[in-house]
Each structure stands twice: as C-alpha cells, then as structure tokens.
C-alpha cells in the first residue's frame, strides 16, 4: 500500500501539535489593577506639567502614601475602593493640600483565566467633589475605570 499522506503534510501537522502544546500559558502577564489615571495640568498654560512635589494618600490611610513628595509625576494612578461606592484622596500639590472624592459603581471583571478577576468601576457623572486650595478644576475624560492605559480625569492646578 502507498503511504497514507506525504511526509510534508505529516511534518506540518506534527509541528502544529507542538506549537499548540508549547503555547499553553498558565501564568498571568496582564495588568490586573484598575486605576483612575489622573493627568496633572498647569491651569496657567493649560499644558501637561508635573508639579514640583506631589503627595497622595487615601483619607484615613496617612501612613500608606501612594506618592510622597514625588517629582516628575504627570499622571497619577489612583486605585478606588471596591468595597464601597465612594472614596477620598488627599492630594498635596507643591505643599498645598486638597481633598478629592470619587463616587462610583463597582462590578467584577474577568481579566483572563490565568489572571482571574478584578473590579472595574463606573464614575457617576458630575460626581467628583473636591476642594480648591491648589486645584482649580477637575473634569472626567473617561468615566469607566479599567486596566487599560486610558486617561480618566484631568486635574488643573
């Protein structure tokens, strides 16, 4: 009897099997933490500009600061509290303190089989509450808070 299939076909099929086996990842390589991505703009010029000093921590979490007198920060990443519908941050720009409060809806989101679940948030429209000691204006650019690298709010100071 003649050969069942040409050698080349068998080689290609075997190769496909090997690729399939070798491409079965079980490790998590994706971003799993959703942040409010806050861009810092200088009100006088309207341009993206890092303040000389930035300190940020959650209200009631003074011992656990996200940014401590940091320089060169143009985009601050602020995680929201998935256990509540509201959380506040103390934002100290160039030594002057303001408070920013976010109100939002939270829902679970599957990142991937390997990375598991995280929480996404929808900021309620016109829900930002903030003091205006150093901050002039804050407005929402994109209200869905995800793991994607997208600007969510702009802070003008």
């Amino acid at each position, binding site marked *: 009897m003649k050969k069942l*299939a040409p050698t080349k076909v068998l080689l290609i099929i075997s190769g496909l099997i090997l690729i399939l086996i070798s491409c079965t990842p079980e490790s998590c390589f994706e971003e799993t*933490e959703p942040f409010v991505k806050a861009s810092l703009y200088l009100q006088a010029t309207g341009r993206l500009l890092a303040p000389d000093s930035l300190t940020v921590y959650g209200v009631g979490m003074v011992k656990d600061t996200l940014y401590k007198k940091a320089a060169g920060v143009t985009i601050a990443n602020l995680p929201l509290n*998935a256990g509540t519908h509201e959380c506040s941050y103390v934002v100290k720009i160039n030594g002057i303190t303001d408070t920013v409060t976010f109100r939002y809806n939270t829902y*679970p989101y599957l990142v*991937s*089989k*390997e990375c598991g679940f995280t*929480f996404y948030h929808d900021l309620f429209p016109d829900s930002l509450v903030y003091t205006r000691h150093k901050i002039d204006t804050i407005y929402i650019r994109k209200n869905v808070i995800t793991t994607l690298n997208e600007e969510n709010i702009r802070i003008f100071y």
Partner: protein
Amino acid sequence: MRRTSVYFISLLVVTICGFRQIKAQDTLLIPLKIKVGLEVSGPATYYIEKKNLSTEGYIAVDLNEKTTALLGAGYLNYKYSQYNYDYQSSGIFLKAGVEFNLLKPEKAMGKYWGGLGLHYGVSMFNSEVPSFYKDNYWGTINSSIPGNTYWGHFIEATPGVRAELFKNFSIGWTISIRMLLYSSAGKAVRPIYFPGFGNGSKTISTGLSYFIAWNIPYKKITVITKKEEPAEEPDDPSKPATTQKSIISQ
C-alpha cells in the same frame, strides 16, 4: 445471415466506442459509512485526575467519498482554582457540520481520512464563581458570582487524521480551533471554561481531541479514476492536453 449480423454488431460496437471516446480507466469501489465516534482523552483524564469530566461523541454519515455530515454532542463538568478565585461550570453542547477528506480516493480507500471539519456549536451551561478575592491599596475584597445559566455559540475548524485500525474500527485525532461568536454571559464576567468551546475568557480557543469510532458500511459507490495518459497531439495548439481527472458514478 448470421455472419452478417456478427459483422453488423461488431461495427456498431466499434462505432459507439469511437463516438464516446472511451479510454482505459481505473475504478474503485469505495464504501460509504455511518460512523459513531467517542472522544477518549476527556474520560481518560477524568479517570486519572478525578477532577474534570469532559465527554464528547458524534454520529457522522458519508455523503460521498469526500464529504461527511456530522452531528456531535457532549457534556462537561469543570472545576478550576487559580490563586485568587474558584470556578465551576457544567453543561452540554451540540455541534453540526461537514468534514472534508482531502486525501485522494485511491489513497483513502474509505479507510483513511485526512482533512478538515467545519462545525457550528451551541452550548448551554451553568457558570459560577463560588469565591474570589482582590487585593489593592484599600485592602482585600472577598466576593462571589452566583451560578446562572448561559448560552454560547461558536464555530470550529478541525483539521486532523483518522485511520481504520481494524475492520470498521478507526482511531484518529483532530486539532480544534474555535471562535466564540456569542456568549449570553456578557463581556465583564465571561465564562472561564464552557462545554464544547473551552477557555471562554478568550475569543479563540484551541484543543486536541482523540477519537475512536465504529464504522458501519451502508452503501458502496464506484469512483472512476482516469490515469494520466500521454498527451495527444492536439489539432489546435491552443487547446491543452488532457490530464488526470476523476469521475464518480454510483
């Protein structure tokens, strides 16, 4: 009179053959079969690991020596734990489609299959996340997603091979490349794994299946294969010479 009749009949036969241009030809008798198959790697894995049970079977009918119609069904009971969640799903699926044997009839002989299957699948399943947790700056949140019944629709391409190992008993394997068309679970909490499709957290899933099948011949067809003949000098040089060609008659 008798001699005249013989000459007349001989002349008639020669004339008819001359008009019909019949040339030397090979014929093959190919059996068409009804195939009942069972996927074996799922039950084998369950027997070893005692964790996830995946079963799949099919019934297929040869429409001709190249094309087979297939109807498949299966059941899945799946549990999975990752570092921050537990997941479970169970349900059934149905799929239907056609399979094309790409081997030539003289190589396949009704016993060997090397080709491609194209299927449409529908899955109905219960999906649940009994527990998961998430750590972030504000602390640890424990949560769960209660069980619910969902539907999934997908298409599948299955290249593979099968060979008749014993009389009317064949084995084989296929690679499955599936594309999710629709899941009623939505986009936020997609099913991590569901029957017939596999990893539902991605749009494309792949898999490897090993089948055993019982083949029941139900009909035989004759496949006529014309072997390549020396090209005749064409009267018109623009006309191409005759090459290999298959004609099927039942």
